[in-house]
């Protein structure tokens, strides 16, 4: 393997890892606050990609405008989803709310089949993003470079929100103890909505970037990335944003590198994430960066 090929793989791995990290954050934030696996998160990702696609093809918006519209729409959609599917069940047993999440996921998928059609759609990738640039002997597509850059920018903003703003403080309070936060006059519903909004926004961004990098859409495209990103969140330690980012990059890098170095195993590509998950869960059930929680009796 030449050095330039290796670099290419590294760039690919970083951009896939960034996408995973973006989606994993949505899972980890929701789980941190509501202790809920938002199974529909992968489908929110799919929705973001579709809305941008229709923005470009139907309304012929420029791609950046379609991106912004889609992100705003998807964030609102995420908030609405929580109101309809999860809020009525907030005090119910965990199993009920998880079933509702699975139901919501399937509802979104089948709605997508119904509305968008089951046939895959080709995405018109803007020229700016599909240009090939050369660094010496290394050549890569702009999108592969842009994804990690934007991801780090978004992460910076997110970290600032969570650590420095009042809303962020409320989020941390709710995730530590929802009842105590309520007593301290934190508006829990608002915090939850905000969390879903941010998670969906990041997922939408991830979805759109995904559709520019792998330019094909289908209604089930969110399923596998969704599962893998949840796994990334668990591997990193669910509830921790840093953990989700780490898990996302870890997963992206391992996946690309295994396929690159051991091509005979590429058929098992989708199984790696699960194997890694099970190993991590068995060795350190709270994930790499997760805090150990005392068991309440």
């Amino acid at each position: 393997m030449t050095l330039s090929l290796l670099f290419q793989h590294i760039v690919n791995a970083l951009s896939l890892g960034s996408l995973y990290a973006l989606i994993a954050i949505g899972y980890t934030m929701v789980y941190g606050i509501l202790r809920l696996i938002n199974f529909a998160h992968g489908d929110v990702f799919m929705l973001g990609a579709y809305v941008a696609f229709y923005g470009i093809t139907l309304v012929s918006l420029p791609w950046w405008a379609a991106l912004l519209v889609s992100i705003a729409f998807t964030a609102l959609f995420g908030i609405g989803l929580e109101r309809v599917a999860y809020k009525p069940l907030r005090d119910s047993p965990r199993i009920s709310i998880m079933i509702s999440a699975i139901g919501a996921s399937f509802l979104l998928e089948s709605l997508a089949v119904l509305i968008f059609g089951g046939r895959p759609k080709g995405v018109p990738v803007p020229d700016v993003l599909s240009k090939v640039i050369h660094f010496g002997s290394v050549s890569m597509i702009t999108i592969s470079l842009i994804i990690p850059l934007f991801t780090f920018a978004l992460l910076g903003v997110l970290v600032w929100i969570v650590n420095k703003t009042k809303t962020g403080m409320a989020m941390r309070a709710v995730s530590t103890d929802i009842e105590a936060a309520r007593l301290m006059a934190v508006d829990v519903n608002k915090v939850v909505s905000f969390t879903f909004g941010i998670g969906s926004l990041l997922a939408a961004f991830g979805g759109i970037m995904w559709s520019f990098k792998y330019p094909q859409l289908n209604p089930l495209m969110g399923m596998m990335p969704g599962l893998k990103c949840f796994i990334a969140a668990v591997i990193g330690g669910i509830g921790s944003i840093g953990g989700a980012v780490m898990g996302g990059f870890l997963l992206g890098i391992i996946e690309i590198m295994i396929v690159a170095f051991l091509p005979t195993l590429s058929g098992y590509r989708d199984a790696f994430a699960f194997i890694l998950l099970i190993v991590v869960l068995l060795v350190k059930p709270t994930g790499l960066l997760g805090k150990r929680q005392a068991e309440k009796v």
Partner: protein
Amino acid sequence: MIMKATTGKQPFALTRNRLLTIIALAAFAVLAIIANSFFDAFTLRVFNMCAIYIVLALSLNLLNGFTGLFSLGHAGFMAVGAYVCALLTMTPELKEMNYFLVPIVPWLRNITIPFLPAILIAGLASAFVGFLIGAPVLRLRDDYLAIATLGFGEIIRVLITNAQPITNGAQGLKGLPRYATTFSVWVAAGLVTLFMVLLMRSSYGRAMKAVRDDELAAEAMGINVFRVKVTSFTVSSFLAGVGGALLGHMITTIDPKMFTFMLTFNILLIVVLGGIGSISGSVISAIVVTILMEALRFLDEPMNLIFFKTEGLPGLRMVVFSILLMVMVIYRQRGLMGNKEFSWDMLQGLFVKKGRKGGDHV
């Protein structure tokens, strides 16, 4: 023990309820015979599919409903059962025809055994896989368990897709002998239902329910929680394997794509609608959902409503089902039966209550 002594009055007395049960079973047997000889192929298939879904729903309910283990990897165990059974029953010529890309491994080529032992071996293989997976995974709880089992389900599917010399990979297996007759599937459904009823009355069943309700309390009462969980997981895998084998021999074609999370979702839907933790709920719901799934197929096809025509809306059926599931979970969390069981007294109670209500208005 003491309970048994006090409640077990004359075990074979022909009480009214027992009589009703026997009549109902006999009526059902007649229905099955009629169905077998007079229904057209499609209707008969739906009728038999109900039985298979009863087996599958009960096996998932054993985990989710009775032991409180939320498992999402059921499709994987069904796949194991379906493949093992198919490989054991297919004739060498049939295998030759199927494995045209990569030849089958020699030790599997010439094995052909009858359906009954094959299905039992399929169940055992599935149970063995369940045991292997369960032993490490069952240390996890709640959501983690759900995700880990989901992961294993996917891993099994990926392995089957890639183990081409054994499973024929993504091409799947075609032309399996149609052994899943009306008789065999309904006998299987009956036996599994009976097994579940007996299991839930036994000390094992009670231990499972204790683990579901309060793990710590169960442990304090001297129940080996981990062992109960592994047992439940293994038995459930066995049943799932049997169900998968029946499914394979009913549809006569299996391929790895069949056993995705979607299949687990369908069974979960049945269990939730019927009532998590109710055997009769699962049975009723398996029948209702299976029939509805077929009856609502018209939703996907072109419709001629009086004012406008729709041209086929593929996917509408699944939308309806997803909404049904969510509405059920949000507004009636306990499902059709809750965790109660059907009994003749209950049925009578239903009518008597209605009668009284009518009386109140007078």
